[in-house]
């Protein structure tokens, strides 16, 4: 009996090891790249596609990650600090030695859509889980466009990942759990505008990579699609219809915010500043409208929209109000105004600011502590630098100020504690 049990356990263990081995070797990995992609594109096709590819690459925001400030174009090198170690983006200029110059059309497709590059598995910092939904035509266009760039002789930087995360083949497990073979974004019965918006949101602009929280395996948690996630100590907000409405956006204002980076709801900061800078400011009016229509779940973006009602102020204790008002008048009011109205073209308003309306106070607290550098926006707009007040306000003063601002203008409960502020310093 005991021998039989032992045999059964052993069999299960061996099968388990075999299954894991099979996954590891990629036997279960399903490529979404069809056989016909092996067929190379003609020089004529490459030339025509490259033109359109410039826009597709902008909409997919490739450049933001595949360049460093002052670095060679498309040569990569941008560090990504992940919980598992540091990963560097790679050289995707057409240099034959360091870039993708020697890559075939199919190899490029497999990297972008399957997450398997010519030299092995990619890490999901490259948003291939989203790019998997790109159309063949769009991937071809980006391929042709990249191949038309100047080759950059810049070596790739080595990642700093400890064992076992340094074994690229291990990503086969992640891919098994987190990659779907269903790559269609189109939903029958919805308008072309809505569907284009969905394609932009889910495939090209890969919004969910930051705005959808991650599950235990660090894949996008489908059940909380676009409902907001933590990112480098701040919050990538909820951008569902409910979330955008809560921040004070209506569909037209939101479309214009993605173009300009500035609205009554504030100015883009953190990583979204770069998204506007490199990508969404160049969106066509149709694509901006489509993205907004999809996120607000409208089949057609209306000609006129009305902003959602301002949130009802929440009462705070007299102590908190007194402390916060003194801080506000001392260090905020000269720029943001006595009524939180800001200065047009110079300083954002606070009374209508989206950061004050988020359930999570960390974005506001971080700005109070660390400030925001001067930022240039499309259309010659420029927001002046905001100083950080970490040295001039105590944890309690920041908590009081944050609570008072959020309660008065954001309609949020005053729940921020000095301890939470201390952790953010």
């Amino acid at each position: 009996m005991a021998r039989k049990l032992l045999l059964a356990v052993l069999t299960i263990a061996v099968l388990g090891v075999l299954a894991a081995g099979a996954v590891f070797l990629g036997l279960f990995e399903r490529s979404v790249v069809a056989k016909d992609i092996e067929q190379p594109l003609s020089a004529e096709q490459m030339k025509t596609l490259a033109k359109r590819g410039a826009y597709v690459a902008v909409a997919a925001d490739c450049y933001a990650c595949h360049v460093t400030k002052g670095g060679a174009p498309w040569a990569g090198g941008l560090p990504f600090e992940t919980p598992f170690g540091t990963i560097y983006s790679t050289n995707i200029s057409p240099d034959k030695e360091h870039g993708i110059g020697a890559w075939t059309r199919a190899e490029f497709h497999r990297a972008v859509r399957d997450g398997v590059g010519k030299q092995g598995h990619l890490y999901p910092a490259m948003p291939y889980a989203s790019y998997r939904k790109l159309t063949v035509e769009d991937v071809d266009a980006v391929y042709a466009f990249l191949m038309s760039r100047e080759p950059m002789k810049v070596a790739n930087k080595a990642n700093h990942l400890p064992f076992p995360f340094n074994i690229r083949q291990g990503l086969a497990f992640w891919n098994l759990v987190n990659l779907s073979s269903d790559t269609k974004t189109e939903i029958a019965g919805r308008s072309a505008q809505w569907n284009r918006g969905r394609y932009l949101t889910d495939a090209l602009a890969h919004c969910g990579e930051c705005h959808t929280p991650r599950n235990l395996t660090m894949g996008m948690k489908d059940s909380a699609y676009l409902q907001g996630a933590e990112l480098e100590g701040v919050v990538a907000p909820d951008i569902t219809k409910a979330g955008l409405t809560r921040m004070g956006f209506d569909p037209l204002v939101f479309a214009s915010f993605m173009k300009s980076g500035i609205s009554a709801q504030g100015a883009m900061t953190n990583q979204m500043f770069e998204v506007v800078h490199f990508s969404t400011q160049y969106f066509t009016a149709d694509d901006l409208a489509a993205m907004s229509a999809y996120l607000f779940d409208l089949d057609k973006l209306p000609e006129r929209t009305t902003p959602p009602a301002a949130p009802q102020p929440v009462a705070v204790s007299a102590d908190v109000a007194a402390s916060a008002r003194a801080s506000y008048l001392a260090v905020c009011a000269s720029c943001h105004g006595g009524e939180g109205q800001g200065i047009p073209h110079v300083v954002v308003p606070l009374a209508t600011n989206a950061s004050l309306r988020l359930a999570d106070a960390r974005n506001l607290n971080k700005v109070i502590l660390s400030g925001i550098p001067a930022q240039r926006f499309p259309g010659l707009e420029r927001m002046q630098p905001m100083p950080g007040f970490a040295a001039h306000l105590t944890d309690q003063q920041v908590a009081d100020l944050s609570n008072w601002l959020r309660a008065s203008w954001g309609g949020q409960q005053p729940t921020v504690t000095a301890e939470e502020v201390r952790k953010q310093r």
Partner: protein
Amino acid sequence: MTIAMKPLSLTINDKPVGPINVPETMMMQDFLFEYLDLTGSRMGCGQGICHACTVVLEKPDGSLEEMRTCITGAHWFAGRKVRTVEGQAKRDASGTITALSPVQQAFIEHFSFQCGYCTPGFVTGATVLLDQLKRNPVRREALEQVISEALDRHICRCTGYVRYFEAVRDLVLKTPGLVKA
């Protein structure tokens, strides 16, 4: 609309000031100008960029910090010690200037300024820098960088930057203890 007033007391240029009833929304710059007739610190941009309006904050531990008066409320300075550009030179009992501060003297000797609008801010910034170097001397090779970092934020429309820079560098080099061997 009535403007809410609040009593304010502080120390300016070693002298106790107040309590004076000051609008609670008033910026320090306006308080210095309108209530105390201390018009040395300049209103430039009014939004904390040009640093012509700065004054020295003398902290309880004796160290100095530069503060922008155009964007900092007067009441933030309640109970604190401030030195404006009027309080930099030495004066006799009658209030007559007997000696400029070392920074002021260096700026004059180097012909650092033309119109002089940014000068009070540069005097303040350089004075704070010297205080910091006294506490934390720098290596000689880092000095230029340190001066740049400390004074870059001061804007001079006559573009007198080079002479301000040279004046500060020479003063640091001839003042013992600010530069490490």
